[in-house]
């Protein structure tokens, strides 16, 4: 019976389910998402797809977030038949990120992984054709990273008219921010 409205499955429940079959695969779980161990990420994804309860046959989207100390690859996986969504994150090293490719599991990841490789520099091992998607082959660097190309003079467009000092938050200069702390 599908849910009437799409439900985001709580991370702890999903982590329990994955742990029941692959104990070392889960590193952490919050209310919204599950963090997987990169070494076992591929089997965990396969399990998510083939399990009857999780039923993750449909990869909604995959993207990447640069969290200064690491790069997170975020997957949203859905079950159309049961109408729920699971969010999964796979952390990767910041300097040389490598994550197993899920293209053999979901074909829909093919172009999205190329985009992540192009813009963030994450290498997906096992991808059939990992080349840059938007930028040309010799483009120096990966633009979406936080440390790519500061504007001259430390300026940044758009926010200059807002007060730089707000109680509880510093802002206004272009620098990588640590998420969750507001700094």
């Amino acid at each position: 019976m599908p849910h009437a409205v799409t439900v985001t499955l709580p991370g702890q429940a999903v982590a329990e389910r994955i742990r029941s079959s692959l104990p070392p695969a889960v590193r952490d779980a919050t209310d919204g998402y599950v963090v997987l161990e990169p070494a076992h990420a591929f089997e965990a994804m396969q399990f998510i797809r083939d399990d009857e309860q999780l039923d993750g046959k449909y990869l909604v989207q995959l993207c990447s977030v640069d969290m200064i100390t690491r790069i997170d690859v975020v997957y949203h996986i859905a079950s159309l038949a049961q109408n729920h969504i699971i969010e999964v994150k796979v952390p990767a090293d910041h300097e040389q990120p490598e994550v197993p490719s899920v293209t053999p599991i979901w074909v829909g990841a093919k172009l999205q992984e190329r985009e992540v490789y192009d813009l963030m520099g994450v290498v997906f091992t096992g991808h059939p054709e990992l080349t840059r998607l938007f930028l040309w082959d010799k483009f120096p660097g990966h633009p979406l990273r936080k440390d790519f190309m500061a504007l001259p003079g430390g300026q940044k467009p758009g926010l200059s008219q807002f007060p730089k000092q707000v109680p509880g938050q510093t802002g206004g200069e272009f620098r990588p921010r640590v998420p969750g702390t507001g700094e």
Partner: protein
Amino acid sequence: MAIKSDLVEVNIGPQHPSTHGVFRMVAIIDGERIVDVKMVVGYLHRSMEKLAEERTYTQNIPFTDRMDYLAAMTGNLGYVLSVEKLAGVEVPERAQYLRTIFAELQRIASHEMATGAFINDCGAWQTPVMWCFRDREKVLDLFEMVCGARITTNYMRIGGVAFDIPDEFLPALDRLINDDLPRRFEELEQLIVGNEIILMRARDVGIVTPELAINASLSGPMIRSAGIAWDIRKADPYCVYDRVNFDIPVGYNGDSYDRMVIRIEEMKQSLRIIRQCMSDLPAGPHKVDVPLALRPPAGEAYSRVESPKGELGFYVVSDGSSAPYRWHVRPPSLINLTVLREMTVGQTIADAIVTLGSIDINVGEVDR
């Protein structure tokens, strides 16, 4: 005993009268059959996701106009829905109804363009294009009436819509959806649906099987043509879609003809939705007051809308400051292109053009 012939590499695009924007396909053909196809995108890459990290949430709304530039309202809508989910903003009733009306009007406009361009790809010398654009012009006139712009509307705001509708809007809308458009859709149907030549050109061309559709994350008319009844407006309703009655068209065969008739049917269902919203439109404020530099709490949110092209999703990560820390768009056009090779290998170039037209890509969204 096959005659050995050389494989020819033919470039289709990026400038081409028929592809929908600057999109390049390199087809390797043997005679007239395609053996392999490779696509090259990125001619319109504008690094919107990087630019958005330097702008406030409200300043990012015009970016969403320009991604899928033929369906700006739904782009705006998806983005403000995700920010509202992140920041916990409650939208007043009137704004919800207005958002639904404009999203459906935008669906009509975008599908008119898609249908016209598709039949142009089939070769009908622009007569259906002109007819479809005639109706699209009327919808764009309504957009101009309410927000001043026809295509890059920038109409949705975090917490509601930008302007309330003027007095002459509802009578004009009533005229449009009760007199003009039903008649025009009937004419279009008589000309196109069941037309022998279009059937010959588009039936069994660009087939998608249901298993491949789910596995390749297709959405929108692509997945519905394969026989899977999946629509975000029904599965994950936003705005007032859970309060209106409408049906979703689902195809049989997964080919280009199915996608075309699905789009025409969706336009008619949009009329139904707009009628119900118009009659139930409540009074009230059209937007809540949200600070100009909104600072949502740290966290992340993913929300999606059913744009005319498919499932348009926005993943926003906030770190508590006034600019998004990371903003990612799930582009339906790019993901629908995943199966381009499977759909076109083994067909002729003419069929490949028809297939590409039926996927209905928008390069602004593919490249961002």
